Each structure stands twice: as structure tokens, then as C-alpha cells.
């Protein structure tokens, strides 16, 4: 996969003067075919980013391109599930799936939708469904559209662990079979760890970390040893207990493993360290860097 599923350049979004900016100067690139975890604290701008990519909002600054075109042009190739799982309350489950077929006549895949919606009571009105059932139906619509890019905003929040596991399985199978790019947001990382091979950490309206999870992990190390200078490495977070120093650093050269006890951080440790240290510089691996605007135009 060479194309970009999402490419943001200086993306900014302000909702009026009073509510401040949800995103500012946000630049990154998500290569196609990845399963991407979009993580960050509440209010970091995750939902705004997904809504912009889905073409529901127009950015106030910068631009976002999706699957090589504008979000509006790519509408038929994107599926989006909003955080509150909006569905037409007066329709039944069967009617909702029928509407999915009517509104996506070119791509609708009944079987894919049924794989997820199968256990739902077909004649039940949407307004009578539980939160988990609504999620199931919303995901069924998204899968039935057979998109190239799925944007899922907190998709698993309402589900019990068993169902979560099962639906993750369906999503992963879909992605593996059709090369679908999936972006899933969450403020609980453990929900997504293991399933995702790409990571975007958004905080304060910017991307703090972006790239293949493995590369991001490999770029960092946890060093334990006697207190001393950590140069040339970039310290993300450090803690001293007596003469013992534990530091999470971004490697800027070979590590001296005679002086330090070196271990690789877990993804959760890494994210927490970055969230606790707002001054740590952003890290985008080469695949996650947005090309300069001139290059995008030339390409």
C-alpha cells in the first residue's frame, strides 16, 4: 500500500470564539491499509479529527485529504460511526439495514452487514435498542457499505468484553480480507492494543505521536540505573527514587547498556509518559509525516 488514507496539512478547527480550538496546526499522514488507534484524553480533538475526515465539518484552517481526494469526493468510500451512534429512531433494525442498501446502492454488501447485525431483533424499533445493540447496528451499516476507510469514534465503549472481542474480530477480518484502513478512537488504550499496528496520539489539538506502533516503541527505551546525565537522549519522563533513576527516553543514538538497565516500554507506559509530560517534543515516524503542500500538489 503506497497511498495515504488520510493526510492532514496544518489542519485547524475552531468552533466559534467561545469554545476555542479543537484542532490547530495538525499535520500527519496515515498510510492506507493500517489499523490505526487514535488515542488521547477526552477533549483532545479526536472526534473533531474524525468528523473532518468524514466530511461532516469544513476545517477552518489547513486541509485534509482522504483516499487521495477531498472528504466530500471520497464520501462513498468512507464509513463513519459517530461516538453517539446516531440512527433513525423510528425505523426498525430491518428498515435501517434496508436504508443502508438504498443509500449505498453501488457498494452495499448485505452479507457483511448481516454478519454483525444478525443477532439483533429485526423488527425492533431502533429507539428500543440498548447501547450495545445500537453499536452493533451502526457497525453493521458501516461494514455493509464496504468502505475503503472506516472512521470509528469510540466504537467499543458500550460493549461488554465478549461482544467487543467478537466485533473486533469481525473488523479485523474485514480489514485483512479487503485491505480496509480502520481508524478507531479511544481514550482507553487497552481497548485497542494488540489490534492496531498504527498509532496517533492526539492531545491539545495536535498530533504528539504518530507512526507504526512498533517503530514508536522501538524509538523509546526505559532506562534504570544510578542518577546521571541522560544526554544525548531526549527525556520524556524521569523519576528518581534515592540514587536510583528511572527514565523513559527517546533514543538519540546508541544506548550505553553497561551503565543502564534498558527495557522497552509498553505502549501504555509510553502514552502515559507523553500525556504527563506536555513539553516532550512530538514524534512522527517517516510514514506518518505529511508531505509538504507543494509535494502534494505535484503528486
Amino acid at each position, binding site marked *: 500500500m503506497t497511498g495515504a488514507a488520510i493526510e492532514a496539512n496544518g489542519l485547524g478547527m475552531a468552533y466559534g470564539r467561545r469554545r476555542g480550538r479543537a484542532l490547530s496546526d495538525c499535520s500527519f499522514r496515515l498510510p492506507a491499509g493500517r489499523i490505526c488507534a487514535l488515542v488521547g484524553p477526552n477533549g483532545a480533538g479526536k472526534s473533531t479529527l474524525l468528523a473532518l475526515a468524514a*466530511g461532516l465539518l469544513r476545517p477552518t484552517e489547513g486541509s485534509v485529504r482522504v483516499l487521495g481526494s477531498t472528504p466530500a469526493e471520497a*464520501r462513498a468510500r468512507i464509513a*463513519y460511526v459517530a461516538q*453517539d451512534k*446516531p440512527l433513525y429512531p423510528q425505523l426498525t433494525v430491518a428498515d435501517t439495514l434496508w436504508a443502508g442498501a*438504498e*443509500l449505498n446502492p453501488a457498494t452495499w454488501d448485505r452479507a457483511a452487514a448481516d454478519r454483525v447485525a444478525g443477532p439483533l431483533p429485526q423488527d425492533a424499533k431502533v429507539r428500543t435498542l440498548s447501547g450495545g445493540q445500537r453499536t452493533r447496528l*451502526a457497525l453493521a451499516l458501516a461494514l455493509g457499505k464496504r468502505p475503503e476507510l472506516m472512521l470509528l469514534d469510540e466504537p467499543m465503549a458500550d460493549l461488554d468484553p465478549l461482544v467487543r472481542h467478537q466485533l473486533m474480530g469481525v473488523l479485523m477480518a474485514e480489514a485483512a480480507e479487503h485491505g480496509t484502513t480502520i481508524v478507531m478512537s479511544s481514550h482507553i488504550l487497552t481497548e485497542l492494543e494488540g489490534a492496531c499496528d498504527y498509532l496517533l496520539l492526539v492531545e491539545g489539538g495536535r498530533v504528539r505521536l504518530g507512526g507504526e506502533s512498533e517503530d514508536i516503541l522501538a524509538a523509546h527505551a526505559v532506562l534504570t540505573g544510578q542518577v546521571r546525565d541522560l544526554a544525548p537522549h531526549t527525556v520524556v519522563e524521569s523519576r528518581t527514587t534515592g540514587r536510583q533513576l528511572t527514565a523513559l527516553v527517546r533514543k538519540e543514538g546508541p544506548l550505553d547498556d553497561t551503565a543502564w538497565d534498558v527495557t522497552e516500554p509498553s505502549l501504555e507506559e509510553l502514552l502515559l509518559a507523553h500525556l504527563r509530560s506536555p513539553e516532550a517534543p512530538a514524534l512522527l515516524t517517516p510514514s506518518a509525516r505529511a508531505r509538504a503542500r507543494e509535494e502534494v500538489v505535484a503528486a
Partner: protein
Amino acid sequence: MSTLTALRGPARVVVRQHRWTLWIAGGLALLTVAGLIALALRSAHVAEVFAASECRTDGADGNRECMQVARNYLDSMFTYRRLFEDVALALMALPVLLSGFVAGPLIARELETGTFKLSWTQSVSPARWLAARLAVPAVLLLAGTGVVSASLYQARSHTESPYPSEWHAMHVFSTTGTVLAGHVLFALCVGALIGILVRRTLLALALSVLVTGAVGVAFAGLRAHLWPPSTVSGTSLDVRENIWWVETGHLTGTGERLSQDVCADVSESARARCFADNGITGHYLDYHPASHFWPLQLVETGILLALAAVAVTVAFRLLRRRTG
């Protein structure tokens, strides 16, 4: 044609979403048409029976028993005319209800509850989503009001009534010709614009009802001035039948128009003196002959369609600016 097929999916979904409203509206329309047919047959029968009785409403038959017969006949015909008027009033109120429905439940509710996020991320653009929401009610309502107003016209003119409905009476003028269709389309487009602007179901509904209602009232008051009236003048006015009186008043020797109120509250004997004091030498009457029916109808319809076009253009622009 391709735009039509592109609207098919979203249009069918709108119909399914609001099928109860459609069933109720369709049922009411059918009931109204059936009621009008019954009313037409009934009034024809009553008129026939009265004609066969050889009684006259003006008492010229000289038969005392006829007084009650004539009174019953007149009462019945008056009731029928009132019923026709009620149907006409309902038709006149329809655009107001329609704009409230379009602004509130059809559009603002999707924006308020967030289901627009579902609608706009299928393979249908927001513009087509809006187009379907305009096209479905437009087609159904133009057809529905067309059938009901045609039935009303037929039922009203089926029998000659001692209480004829004159072409310029508000409830007649508003429900014949093209004016009703104009008001329906205007209500639809204004409702769409307000729904998109306001994004709150109840507020949008109320505002839209208010705006459409105000415009309806304004047209009822001003429509006589939408086409230049004919004028007669002279010392005594030869008033023709079947005309719409617009304005009447006095004329001075220099041709200046004076209000009807001048010399209105002086006694009969002092009137000549008052006329002389004011230099009044004659009177004038501005009126619309029946031949002005179509010009008046078409000018009003044209203004409404132009306003509707502006509203719908702004609505689409807003939607486009918001979503990109």
C-alpha cells in the same frame, strides 16, 4: 434523469422515515375529497327538491307554505357554503403546517439529534439529502393540494347556490388557480432554510410557522394591489357585477382623489353642501374585473416562487459551507 435516479434512494428513505405522517396526511386528503363529493351530491339534491317544489326564495310564489320550505333550503345551502369555506381555510393553513413540519421534524430534528452524521456519511451528499427532503413533500403536496382544490372547485360550482362564492373572496382566490401551489413551494423552501439555520426542532417549527403565517396574511391583505386595477368614475357609478372592489372615494374638479370618509358623517341634507365645500364633483371606484383573475394569480405566484428560490439557494449554500 440521472439526478432523479440519484434521488431515488434518499427519497425512499425519507418516505419510510415519515410514513405515518404520510399515511395520516393522505388519509385526511382522501376523506376531504370524499366529503366534498358527498357535499356536492347533497347540495345538488337539495337544490333539485327545492326547484321541484316550485317555491321561490323571494316569496314571489305567493304560497304561505313555501316560507318554511324556502327557509330550510336557504339554511341548508348556507351550511354547505360554510363547509366549503372550512375546507378552503384548511387548504390555506396547509402551507403553514407544511413549513413547520419541514423545518422541525424533517430537517432540524436530524441536525439536533445528530442523525445527520448518519445521513451525510452514506454515499449521498448533504446536498442530495436536502434535495430529497424537498422533492418528496413538493411532489406529494402539489399533487395532494391540486386534487383537493380541484375537488373543492368542482363541488362548489356543481350546484347554483343562493350564496355564490365570488372569485375574489379570500377563501376562493386562495384555493383556486396557481396561488396555492406558490404558497406550498414557498412554505417548503422557507421551512428548509429555517430548519438548517436554527437546528432546534421546536424553535425551527415555531419560527417557520410564524414566518409562513405572516407571509400568508400579508398576501391576503396586499394581493389586490399586485395588478393595476381598473377604474370607473363619474357622478354616479355604474357598478358592474362580479367585480372585486379595491377602493372607492370622491373626485374633485381637478381630478384629485379624496377619501370615502370625507363627508361620510354629515347628514343627507348637508351632504351636497359638504361636497361643494370640498370641491367634490364625482366619485371613483378602483376594481378588478373577473378578467384580472389570472394576472393577479400569476403575479402572486411569481413573487412566491422567486422568494422560494432565494430561500432554497441560501439553504443549499449554507449546507455546502458548513460541510465542505
